[in-house]
């Protein structure tokens, strides 16, 4: 099985991406994936945000699927609002959601 494509998109005006990257890499390591395989990309223009369908920083996608459905959020250079599983607002996704997204992608790939 090949490793899922793991992407982290960030905007430098928001200070949350180092924490998000650290937690993402920890989740990958926990699930037996190579943490250095994260594709990290900066989004730094509003045109780029539109092009990437970037609704805020950080955005994490596993095989193209967002770890938290952005719904109809508009694209923007902004910090993204996440909700942790205990209901708290957070600038980064719940690590459990990240792990589940990676697991789902790995399961999908294992059935292909």
């Amino acid at each position, binding site marked *: 099985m090949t490793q899922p494509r793991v992407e982290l998109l960030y905007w430098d*005006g*928001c*200070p*949350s991406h180092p924490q998000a990257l650290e937690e993402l890499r920890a989740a990958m390591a926990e699930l037996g994936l190579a943490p250095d395989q994260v594709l990290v990309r900066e989004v730094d223009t509003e045109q780029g945000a539109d092009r990437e369908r970037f609704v805020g920083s950080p955005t994490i996608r596993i095989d193209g699927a967002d770890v938290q459905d952005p719904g109809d959020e508009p694209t*923007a250079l*902004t*910090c*993204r*609002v*996440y909700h942790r599983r205990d209901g*708290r*607002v*957070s*600038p980064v996704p719940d690590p459990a959601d990240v792990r589940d997204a990676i697991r789902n992608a790995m399961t999908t790939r294992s059935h292909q």
Partner: protein
Amino acid sequence: MSTAIGTEAPTFTLPDTDGAEHGVGGNELTPATLVVFTCNHCPYALAWHDRIVAVAEDYPDVKVLAVSSNDAERYPRDSFDAMRDRVAGDGGWPMPYLYDESQEVARAYDAKTTPDCFVIDSDGRVAYRGAPDADHQDPSLNAAWLRDALDAVLAGEEPAQAETEPVGCSIKWKQ
């Protein structure tokens, strides 16, 4: 204008979500004032919001002013209408939510982030500037840095920690 610790806080008057004017300065005698630059769209401001509300409730002698200065054109969630809707949706706030449409107040305070907190003493001087506490993700910290600063100012003393690094989303300046 400057926001260095010990210098005079910039005076201002801004409208709240009900249209009433509030601000810093004038002849009002206030033992302490807390100005918090905040907004609707930032996860850091949202994560700390309940702790700021608790401070406003726990310190009735302190004048607490929440100020939103972001460019509402690029960030419509920070529009005056959205501010009104948020306060109404919460059933009211214990502090006024002020709209700094021109961004002059944020510039005068050299506000960096949402949130960015300024505690002003009874002489109108900045006594504390920075974050509410050490971690937006830990509600148990209960805005400890802010409370320590307010306790000191209300006791007529200088805060032991007068400045911390503000943490949050950058103020969204008009382009």
